[in-house]
């Protein structure tokens, strides 16, 4: 639920785009187990790897930033990524809390 405690990431995304930055929006679309942030949590990333907001408690943000930069470089419109506890082969990072999340990355344009 996006209630009164909404974090205003979309507003920030709009400001970044207005400032001619390339922006990827990352949204938690699914969670399983004790994931750190609820569905709907958001983060934005630009072409330089600057980011704002969060999709976890700091566990997977660095990987999300890398993926987002990749999307911008490859000029891809979107991508879905999943983070699991023991997903070591795909990611150096994982959720320390033992949860699983699916994050949807999409260009804002």
């Amino acid at each position: 639920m996006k209630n009164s405690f909404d974090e205003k990431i979309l507003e920030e995304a709009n400001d970044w785009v207005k400032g001619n930055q390339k922006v990827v929006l990352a949204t938690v679309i699914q969670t399983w187990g004790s994931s750190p942030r609820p569905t709907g949590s958001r983060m934005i990333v630009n072409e330089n790897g600057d980011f704002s907001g969060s999709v976890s408690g700091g566990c997977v943000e660095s990987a999300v930033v890398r993926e987002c930069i990749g999307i911008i470089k490859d000029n891809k419109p979107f991508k879905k990524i999943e983070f699991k506890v023991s997903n070591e082969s795909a990611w150096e990072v994982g959720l320390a809390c033992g949860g699983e999340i699916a994050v949807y990355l999409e260009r804002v344009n």
Partner: protein
Amino acid sequence: MQLKILQEIIKKKINKSEFAIITNLENSNSEIFELGKPIGKNFEKYKDQINEFYKNKKNGVIENTNIFVETYIRPIKVIIVGAVHIAQYLIDYAKSLNFEIIVIDPRGYFATEQRFPDMKIMNKWPDEAFKEIETNSNTALIALTHDPKIDDPALQHALKKKFYYIGALGSKKTHANRCQRLTEAGFSNNEINSIHGPIGIKLGGKSAPEIALSIIAQLVSETYKR
């Protein structure tokens, strides 16, 4: 997400509308869903499920589909009576929490623009001010003047309209006197006991920002108890 949609969402948030964003994860096309408005062709077959998510204020992917629904609800209206020192800090905290704040104070020397930049203060008595504000059981009241002339009418209005949170600043003695007056005005013990007085959770602090923090913490906690 298309920039056009993103900007439309921001506009809707500013206008305090309730809506949902629906996204097809297969192509990242999004659109805004509003109750009673026609739904786009691409999402029409999921209409019932989207309505269900919207009704329950739920976010998530509709089962066995690639449709993501994210619902937005209106910010909670918080009415502060008394443009006092604590109110200045409350407004700061409330901004990052995205509460919709309305400050009422009939005393012109408190309700100045210099003390409250970027904030319109209603320079009216609560009874008059409440004629212009829509209130209901999703509204909160924070009474800060501890002046019965100003606080009491606001508290009475909040009790009648069954605000989900009513807090009143003042010592235990001030609060006991306040309860006595409300009893005389015909309010039941149950109603009177629903008022948080002395206001705020116990943090131990005495400074204006600390009191504001204790009030906002209580308000957030009560918001989730609704």
